[in-house]
């Protein structure tokens, strides 16, 4: 617990912090990537029960894979095990198959939403989703060199600060 407390601290209005960013994820498949990001969320306290949340994400994924053309995976769920809208981000140079027809995902966004989320939470996530289809936003994430870059970018683009 040397610097853990500060690093994991996520103020109530934040969507993401540096602890929730993994710029070089090493995982065999999408389950592992999702689990890794979800575990980070659990450490921040935003996810109260890891397995429940993973089950909800998986249920959504089984309806239809969330991989999108252009190397993006967006596993997501509304879950009772989530306390506030939270984003986890992972980047993979080799890519992880996410069910998209054109190839593996390099940018992976795990979106956690509380089950009975207020419209405020949902509006933030809607703003995030809209950014995800913008080439400039994606490029900036590809180019980011540190987790703090990613957090700053998302705060600026999605939360407008």
């Amino acid at each position: 617990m040397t610097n853990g407390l500060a690093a994991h601290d996520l103020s109530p209005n934040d969507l993401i912090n540096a602890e929730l960013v993994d710029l070089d994820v090493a995982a065999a498949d999408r389950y592992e990537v999702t689990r890794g990001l979800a575990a980070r969320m659990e450490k921040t306290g935003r996810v109260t029960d890891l397995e429940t949340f993973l089950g909800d994400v998986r249920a959504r994924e089984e309806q239809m894979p969330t991989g999108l053309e252009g190397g993006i995976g967006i596993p997501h769920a509304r879950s009772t095990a989530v306390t506030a809208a939270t984003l986890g981000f992972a980047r993979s140079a080799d890519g992880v198959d996410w069910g998209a027809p054109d190839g593996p995902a390099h940018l992976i966004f795990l979106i956690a939403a509380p089950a009975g989320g207020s419209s405020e939470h949902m509006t933030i996530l809607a703003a995030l989703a809209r950014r995800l289809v913008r080439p400039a936003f994606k490029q900036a994430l590809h180019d980011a060199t540190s987790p703090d870059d990613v957090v700053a970018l998302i705060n600026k683009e999605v939360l407008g600060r």
Partner: protein
Amino acid sequence: MKIVAVTSCPTGIAHTYMAAESLEVAAEEAGHEILVETQGAAGSDPLSAEQIGAADAVIFAADVEVRDRERFAGKPLIQVGVKKAINDAPALLAEAERAAKEPVPASAAGAPPAPATKVDANAGFGTHLRQWLMTGVSYMIPFVAAGGILIAIAFLIGGAKIASKVNGGTFEGVTYAGVSTDHLDKLLSQTGFAGVLFFIGSTAFKMLVPILAGFIAYAMADRLGLVPGIVGGLLASAIGAGFLGGLVAGLLAGFLALQMKKLRVPRGVAGVMPVVVIPLVTTAVVGTLMLVVIGQPIAAATTHLTNWLNGLGGSNAVLLGAILGLMMAFDLGGPINKVAYTFGVASLSAGNLTIMAAVMAAGMVPPLAMALSTVLRPKLYTKSERQAGEAAWLLGASFITEGAIPFAAADPIRVIPSLMAGSAVTGAMSLGFGATSRAPHGGIWVVGLIGKPLLYVLAIVVGVLISTLCVTFAKSLGESDADFDTEPESAASTYPSAGSVPSPAGSRTPAGATVRS
């Protein structure tokens, strides 16, 4: 051009908004005005009646039913899965532009809820063909299930002679007059309740070819395909062209209706096109073709095939059994399967009870094998497949081969050859043992009418085990994440989830229906 769009997805937190953004960006680049209603978790800002009224075209990029879709009635509509809008919004806008230019919105948005099809607008021809056939087959399955089980019950309580009692004819030395269709009031008194059930079941079976043809055409051309398809199917039955004829009639009807739908006609005529002109012309053309041109050759080909099978029966019963087994499992209730089945029924009426037994045994194998495989290795199957597996026990035991279709549709390369292998062995063993069946349907429930029942069951068990091993092995090869990848990419292409009931999903979903993904 002015466009309005609705986006929606199951969770309502990601795809809905990504699709909206993609459409807005693409519209701006293409110089269109677009207003998007996002039916997501953040609440939607409904489009006003004026905004919709001013729009030249409507886009639904939705994986769940669009709320209040009747607001868009009468507008040119493009309807796709939500991913299509995210991945290729410019193409979608171009499609909307074309739709707006068509003189008549052939299938207007918000039209009364219609039966679902399994057609994904974005697929290639091969996929389309498969989806058309699957749509036809999926509407046919409930008729097979209802008719088949009613017939089985009729045999169970009325004995093997019930068919002859109802239809007339000689069975085991006794000649029955049958019940004339003009005197159906005598049905109950002459043949008992078993006869009534048999008649109902037979009537359901008579609908198989017309329903198959009608809904193949429906998948291609919406409701405009129904009339020429169903009439073409009835004619195919009447002329003896059977299921192959029905398949051709359906494709023909769908194609023709689709072409006529695209015709540009003056607005004055446009109103009567879908109600009078298109049904009249397509039905006349399809009917004439079936009766005069292509029906006879197909009927002849079917007869030829039957004769060939008959010839085999004399010389090499085991080979005949294997071939019938291959046919039963090849399309799992489709035209080839039904040719084999019809051959079995014809042999039965000719007094040869062994072929019917082999056909029925082979037809029971595929659903049972899939059911067993989902139990042995559930991880290889999606949730909906596991549910289909539960239903497949009953369907297989009842000789409803169609119970295996959900699996074959999702993964034909691995599933179909595996099922064919087991069915072929079962068919060969049944004929080799000389097992007999006096009932044309009913599966395990009519085992009392089976000759050499123990060997018969053995043949089925061996075939099921072979198919189960093959399919489980094939599935575990390079299928480590089956849970994700065997689901359809788009909500607009799906298949029956429980084998016996078409699960409505996709572009023309009835209100209140459950929609997957």
